[in-house]
C-alpha cells in the first residue's frame, strides 16, 4: 500500500475498536514506508533510543522538506510512517504549524511519543522541527 495522508490515517485508526487491529495497522503502515539502504544508516543519521534505534535522512526539494526514516523495530517503523505522513514534502512553515502532539493524541498513541519512552521518536520530531526552523 502507498503511505496514506495524516488525515486518512486518523480516519482509518478511528475505525478500529481493538488495540490488536490498531497495532496491526501501524505495523502494516511501517511496511509501506520504504526501508533505508544499509549504507544510508550512518552514525550521524542515527538517533539511538535506549530501546530501539532510528535513522533519519533529510533533503530539501523546491522549498519542501523530504525525509526518509528507518527503525530496527517494526512498531517504531510504523510510528515513523505516521510521522512521515504528517511531515513529508511539506514546506517548513507547514511543518512548524502542524500540531504533532494533537495528532498523536487523535490517534490515541500519545504514550509512544512521550519523552519518557526511549524509542527515539521524540528526538526525530525535534530534529524535523529544528530543520524546519532553520530553512523557514
Amino acid at each position, binding site marked *: 500500500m502507498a503511505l496514506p495522508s495524516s488525515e486518512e490515517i486518523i480516519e482509518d485508526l478511528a475505525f478500529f475498536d481493538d*488495540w*490488536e487491529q490498531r*497495532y*496491526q495497522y501501524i*505495523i502494516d503502515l511501517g511496511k509501506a514506508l520504504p526501508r533505508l539502504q544499509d549504507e544510508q544508516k550512518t552514525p550521524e543519521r542515527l538517533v539511538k*533510543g*535506549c*530501546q*530501539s*534505534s532510528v535513522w533519519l535522512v533529510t533533503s530539501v526539494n523546491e522549498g519542501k522538506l523530504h525525509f526518509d526514516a528507518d527503525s*530496527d*523495530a*517494526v*512498531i*517504531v517503523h510504523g510510528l515513523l510512517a505516521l510521522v512521515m505522513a504528517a511531515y513529508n514534502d511539506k514546506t517548513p512553515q507547514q511543518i512548524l504549524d502542524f500540531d504533532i502532539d494533537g495528532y498523536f493524541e487523535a490517534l490515541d498513541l500519545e504514550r*509512544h511519543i512521550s519523552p519518557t519512552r*526511549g*524509542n527515539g521518536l521524540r528526538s526525530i520530531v525535534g530534529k524535523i522541527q529544528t530543520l524546519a526552523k532553520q530553512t523557514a
Partner: protein
Amino acid sequence: MSFDVQAVRAQFPILSQQVDGKPLIYLDNAATTQKPQAVIDALMSFYTQTNANVHRGAHKLSDEATRRYEKARDQVAAFINANSREEVIWTAGTTEGINLVAHGLAKQLEAGDEVVVTEMEHHANLVTWQQACIQSGATLRVAPIFDNGELDIETFQSYLGPNTRMVAFPHVSNALGTLNPVKDLVAMAKRYDALVLVDGAQGIAHGGVDVQDLGCDFYAFSGHKLFGPTGIGVLWGRRSVLEDWPVWMTGGEMIAEVSYQSASWGALPLRLEAGTPHIAGAIGLGAAVEWFGSLDLAAVQAHEKALIESAMLQARNIEGMRLIGTAPNKVGILSFVMDNAHPADIGFILDRQGVAIRTGDNCAQPLMNRLGINGTARASFSLYNTLDEVDAFFVALRKAQSMLA
C-alpha cells in the same frame, strides 16, 4: 512457616490494578519492586506524625524522627548481619554506594595498580571503576564470562595478583540472572589482600545475605529493589575499612569541628553521610527489611525457583526464542531475544496486554556487545508473582510473536 503467594499479593495494593482493562502482570522486578502496605504505612506514619529533621532538633518530633531513623539502621544491620550499626551507611542507592567507594579508591590508586571487574557488569559497577582507573592511571581488568553468562572463574582467578587493589562484581547479574559464587570469589581476592565490593542490587532481594559470612569489604544495594522506597540505599562496609575511607561528600552532619579554613570529620556512620538524609526513605527501608525478614525465606526461594523453572521450561516450546543467560546458577531473570522480532516490539505488544517487562540494553552495553546483541527483552520475577502469571506471560508472548510474524 510456609508461603502463600495470594496472601503476600494481597499486601501489595498496586498489584490489583488493571492496565488498559487487563490485570497488571508486573514482570519488571529487576528494575524495581512494588511496595507492601507495611512500607507505605511507615512512610505515611512518618510524614503524618513525626516529620522533623534528625540529630539536631531540640524538640520531641525531632527526637522521635531520629529514633525511628536510627532504628531503621539497626533493622538493616540485623538483616544483613553487619558487625555493628556503624557499618550501615545510608546512600541514595547502589549507584551512590559504589561511587562513594570508587571516588575514595581513585585517590589511593596509582599506575601499576589493578582493579578487576567482570564482563557482566551493570554500568553502575563498571563506569565507576573505569573512571577511577582513568583518573589514577590504574588498569581495569575485565574478567570474561562464558557464552551462557557464567563467570569464567579460572580466568578471573588468573587476573588476580599482588597488584590487585579492588575486585568488584555483581551478586546477581541484572541482565542474565547469573548468581555468582560470592564467597569463593571473595576468598580468591583475599589471597592478595584486595578489597572486594559486591554489587548487591539484584542479590539482596534473593534473601539470606550475611555480609560477615560473605567476607567482602563492601556490599551495596538499593531500597527500591527490596520492596522499599526509591532514593534510599545502603552501603555496608567493614568498619576497619570505612573508618578512614576518604570522605566523598562534605557538609553538614558529617563534621566534628569546623573553622573557616579547616574541618575535621565526625565518626561513622555520619562521616560518610553529608547533609540531611532521606529520613522517610530510611524508615521505609527499615519497614521493608522487617517485612521481608518476617517471611519464610526457604519457602520464598522455593517459590521463586518454581517461577523461573517454569519460565525456562515454557521458553523451550517457543520457536525462535533464545534465552540470554543460561548459567546453571540463575535466579529470577528471563532475558531473551526472538528471531524476527525486536525486543522493543515485543515490549509494546506485551504492554498492551497488561504485561510489564523491560526491553533494551539492560544498562549493560558492553555486555550486550560481548554477547553480540543490541539488547534483550527481560521478564524478571519477584516473590509475589504467580505461576499463572508466568503462563499468562507466554500467552501474551505468543500473541506478540504472531502479530510480528
